[in-house]
């Protein structure tokens, strides 16, 4: 392995392919060879051409493209269908080498690639090229029709690449044929192997990319969904496991003041809001209110709607006094209406991503996300949805998704994985009662914020949208007319109570007055008695005094010996009293 020991420490070349540089920690190995293998239509040519175009645009260094399978003119025509910056100067920086052996060429004996490689070496020196793609090497090797010769030529290319120091990319078709296995050893002699796969599941086509090998470098070995859209090949990179979002404390209004209050200030900026509910439960209205509020704050907003035209949405929202048209005119708001079409949802998400990049919104509505749900049952689709939302989060875009859901059975929500990625989940439901249907709003969850657990009635009118408390009576939630009735009943009840209270108060006052009056009588009586008593006391006192003095007078009158103390009951004057003899 003289080629390896000669090489300098590993450095990398950015491919500029969305997501690929992330999973390889910086792109392809510089000055070494990468094999891109896959079946027909996997995007091998797009992948390799795209990385050349990106490289030329970024570094202004020349590159070479050796086309074994398609003619240069064909390749350039295909390249023109992408939105790449592939201007004339950039095109001139890439040297295309037509290396298709014409079908009428006669083969007589063995050939080799010495001539071609020499020509390319001369050209590379002349252009100061740094990168080369050998596209469809299997086509040429197949002509050799001899395993030993094929192997020899592959080694020749490898040595040539090591010698020239070019960063090489070799693409190789792998098909179901046994013959294709012949080139398997290619994997062992290159430094990096990228496998592209194209599969059809339930009639839907899915493309995947996997880095199978990367000498001297860490990489993510998972299979990642890719899409081929106007932007070219894109990888939906979920930045495996690690979630690095900058979280915001900033709140943005939901468009309904009362709902903001329920969320203790509105949605978090950069968060993901899911509005679920039955058909017609005003999901779009709530989404529209959010968009209108964002535009009013002067924020760029993108409204993505599926299966419903922009003008229809604007008209519908006007009926509840939400005006989007002026914002659309000013360019703040972009309405992007598309059909949930076609087999590949992964590509649809890629398209959305491109639209987001073009408009650079800070607020986004996807209405309804569940339009894609039929496709979301497939793992790759669910992945794509999740990755799209992840991408939005990374861009700190506040997203409101609506989702058609009849109940919070969560089956559907869980299947799509949307509910788990949603930071705030608001469910809208109907309450059918007494022959009418009313809308109810509940906050199922809201991460990182306190929120009301109360069910609110959502009232739509031509003056706007409001939330109202619901009445709970006898274990039943009342809305609409039932609530009005309840309100009337409550008012009457209140009046009745008022009257009864007033009456009672009067009665009490009367009783109080009565008591006071009685107290007055008693008081007066007391005073009278007191007076009476005083008079009585006075009278008694003088009487006893009188008696005392009377006795003295009497004694003196009888000349009683005042000094002699006579035994009790013995009258000194009248001698000894005989028992049984009273005074007569």
């Amino acid at each position: 392995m003289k080629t390896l020991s000669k090489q300098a420490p590993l450095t990398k070349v950015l491919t500029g392919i969305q997501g690929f540089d992330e999973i390889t920690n910086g792109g392809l190995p510089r000055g070494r060879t990468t094999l891109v293998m896959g079946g027909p239509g996997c995007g091998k040519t797009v992948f390799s051409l795209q990385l050349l175009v990106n490289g030329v645009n970024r570094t202004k260094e020349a590159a070479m493209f050796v086309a074994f399978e398609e003619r240069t003119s064909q390749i350039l025509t295909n390249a023109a269908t992408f939105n790449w910056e592939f201007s004339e100067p950039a095109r001139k920086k890439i040297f295309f080498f037509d290396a298709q052996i014409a079908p009428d060429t006669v083969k007589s004996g063995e050939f080799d690639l010495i001539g071609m490689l020499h020509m390319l070496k001369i050209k590379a020196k002349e252009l100061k090229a740094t990168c080369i793609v050998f596209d469809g090497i299997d086509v040429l090797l197949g002509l050799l029709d001899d395993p030993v010769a094929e192997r020899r030529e592959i080694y020749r290319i490898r040595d040539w690449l090591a010698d020239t120091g070019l960063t090489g990319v070799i693409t190789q078709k792998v098909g179901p044929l046994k013959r294709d296995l012949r080139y398997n050893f290619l994997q062992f002699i290159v430094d990096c192997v990228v496998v592209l796969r194209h599969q059809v599941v339930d009639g839907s086509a899915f493309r995947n990319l996997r880095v199978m090998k990367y000498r001297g470098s860490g990489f993510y070995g998972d299979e990642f969904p890719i899409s081929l859209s106007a932007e070219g090949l894109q990888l939906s990179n979920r930045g495996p496991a690690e979630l690095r979002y900058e979280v915001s404390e900033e709140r943005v209004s939901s468009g309904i003041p009362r709902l903001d209050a329920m969320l203790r200030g509105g949605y978090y900026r950069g968060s993901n809001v899911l509005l679920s509910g039955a058909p017609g439960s005003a999901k779009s209205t709530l989404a529209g209110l959010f968009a209108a509020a964002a535009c009013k704050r002067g924020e760029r907003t993108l409204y993505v709607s599926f299966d419903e035209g922009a003008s229809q949405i604007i008209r519908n929202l006007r009926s509840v006094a939400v005006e989007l048209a002026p914002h659309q005119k000013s360019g703040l708001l972009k309405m992007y209406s598309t059909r949930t079409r076609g087999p590949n949802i992964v590509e649809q998400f890629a398209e959305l991503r491109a639209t987001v990049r073009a408009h650079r919104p800070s607020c986004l509505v996807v209405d309804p996300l569940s339009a894609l749900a039929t496709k979301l049952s497939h793992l790759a689709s669910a992945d794509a949805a999740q990755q799209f939302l992840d991408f939005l989060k990374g861009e700190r875009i506040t997203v409101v998704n609506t989702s058609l859901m009849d109940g919070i059975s969560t089956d559907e929500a869980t299947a799509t994985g949307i509910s788990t990625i949603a930071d705030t989940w608001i469910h809208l439901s109907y309450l059918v009662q007494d022959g009418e249907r009313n809308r109810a709003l509940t906050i199922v969850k809201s991460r990182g914020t306190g929120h009301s657990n109360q069910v609110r009635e959502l009232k739509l009118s031509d003056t706007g949208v409001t939330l109202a408390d619901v009445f709970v009576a006898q274990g039943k939630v009342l809305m609409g007319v039932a609530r009005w009735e309840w309100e009337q009943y409550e008012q009457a009840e209140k009046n009745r109570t008022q009257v009864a209270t007033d009456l009672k108060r009067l009665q009490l006052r009367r009783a109080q007055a009565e008591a006071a009056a009685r107290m007055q009588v008693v008081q007066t009586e007391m005073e009278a008695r007191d007076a009476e008593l005083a008079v009585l006391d006075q009278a008694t006192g003088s009487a006893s005094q009188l008696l005392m003095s009377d006795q003295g007078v009497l004694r003196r009158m009888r000349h009683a010996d005042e000094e002699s103390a006579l035994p009790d009951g013995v009258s000194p004057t009248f001698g000894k009293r005989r028992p049984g003899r009273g005074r007569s």
Partner: protein
Amino acid sequence: MPPIAIKKASLVLRLYVAGSAPNSVRAIRNAQAICDAHFASRYELEIVDLLEHPQRAFIDGIIVTPTLIRLLPLPVQKVVGSLSDAEQLLLALAGS
């Protein structure tokens, strides 16, 4: 020995080789042997070493070595390989 019908060569060939690579060396030998045997002096064979004249190879659209080009008679016909398959080579040189 067939007679020389016309002075001017009716068969004009150009053989691109890559130095002294085995296939190239073999091709030169095979080309000369077959042409001598079948076309005698009615042919012209130019041998171009691609390693020395790469620009000519670009003009002639050479991809692999060795490559033999029949310039005349028209149409231009290419034969790739060491020309070890004489039957294939003769068909190519004689055919139209």
